[in-house]
């Protein structure tokens, strides 16, 4: 009797509050699996955001801190600088990271802080009920742009990976998604690579996961996946944005 698949040791045996089909749950699993595979669960310190993933600290089977909205990169800096040999990561949504926390993520990247950021870009403020995020696509509806986002009113959506990649301290940035198994596998490899670079002391590593928020997109989980594939990935190109070890593609 052998397990072909069971819940990673990296997650605690607690039901998650995420909505049906929300990608937060999937990405939690990938991070947990990577940490387990790399045998880092006893060492790692995670930082969760304010956003739907605010409960991540309850779900992961490792030490965690809950940061103020947007400040996870500053909190992680406080941790990593004082624990240079332990793995540290932040897990942040797009409201948290790209809006209120833009300054903190930019500066963590600039300083080349040696932690990993897993960035859940679902183009919306999930937890607060579906307001526009800096990453909301043009034309996409949200509760603070009910006719769809317009560039005139709110600007063009931010490509965080590309922006952070301009900073030398950011050594690795890749954009992935988890809408199907090949992409999910790629996402997991990316997360693993980020932690490997981190442990090798290379610098700041950044994984942007295009994700769905079926609830606030007003779609079924499967329709949401399709929207991600067709619309979101068209604007936010999947793939390695920067990899100093491997030369930029």
């Amino acid at each position, binding site marked *: *009797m*052998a*397990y*072909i*698949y*069971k*819940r990673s040791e990296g*997650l605690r045996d607690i*039901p*998650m509050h*995420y*909505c*049906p*089909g*929300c*990608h*937060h*749950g*999937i990405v*939690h*699993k990938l991070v947990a699996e990577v940490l387990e595979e790399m045998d880092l669960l006893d060492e790692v310190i995670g930082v969760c955001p304010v956003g739907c993933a605010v409960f991540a600290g309850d779900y992961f089977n490792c030490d965690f801190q809950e940061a103020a909205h947007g400040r996870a990169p500053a909190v992680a800096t406080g941790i990593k600088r004082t624990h240079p040999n332990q793995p540290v990561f932040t897990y942040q949504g797009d409201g948290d990271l790209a809006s209120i926390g833009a300054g903190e993520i930019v500066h963590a990247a600039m300083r080349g802080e040696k932690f990993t950021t897993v960035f859940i870009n679902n183009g919306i403020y999930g937890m607060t009920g579906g307001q526009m995020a800096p990453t909301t696509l043009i034309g996409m509806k949200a509760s603070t742009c009910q006719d769809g986002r317009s560039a005139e009113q709110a600007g063009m959506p931010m490509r965080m990976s590309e922006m952070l990649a301009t900073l030398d301290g950011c050594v690795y940035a890749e954009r992935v998604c*988890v809408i*199907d*198994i090949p992409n*999910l596998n790629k996402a997991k490899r990316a997360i693993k690579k980020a932690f490997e670079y981190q442990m090798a002391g290379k610098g700041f590593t950044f994984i942007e996961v295009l994700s769905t928020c*079926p609830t606030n997109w007003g779609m*079924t*989980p*499967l329709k949401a*996946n399709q929207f991600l594939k067709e619309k979101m990935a068209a604007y936010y190109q999947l793939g390695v944005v920067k990899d100093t070890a491997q030369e930029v593609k």
Partner: protein
Amino acid sequence: MIRLTFDTERCKACELCAAVCPKHILALNADLVNLKGYHPMGCIDMASCIACASCAKMCPDSVITIEKI
């Protein structure tokens, strides 16, 4: 032999697992309602399962466990 276990009380009927199953053998069970109010997912043709684990990998809520027995 392959055993697929569903932790049905945790299933949220998102159907992401069903969508990635290469054998199309997963479906919601309209006859059951769990405590959360969902019709939970189940396997309708265990025999066809190839144990690829796609469903389990994809499930956001870790509902599915797969064993070789």
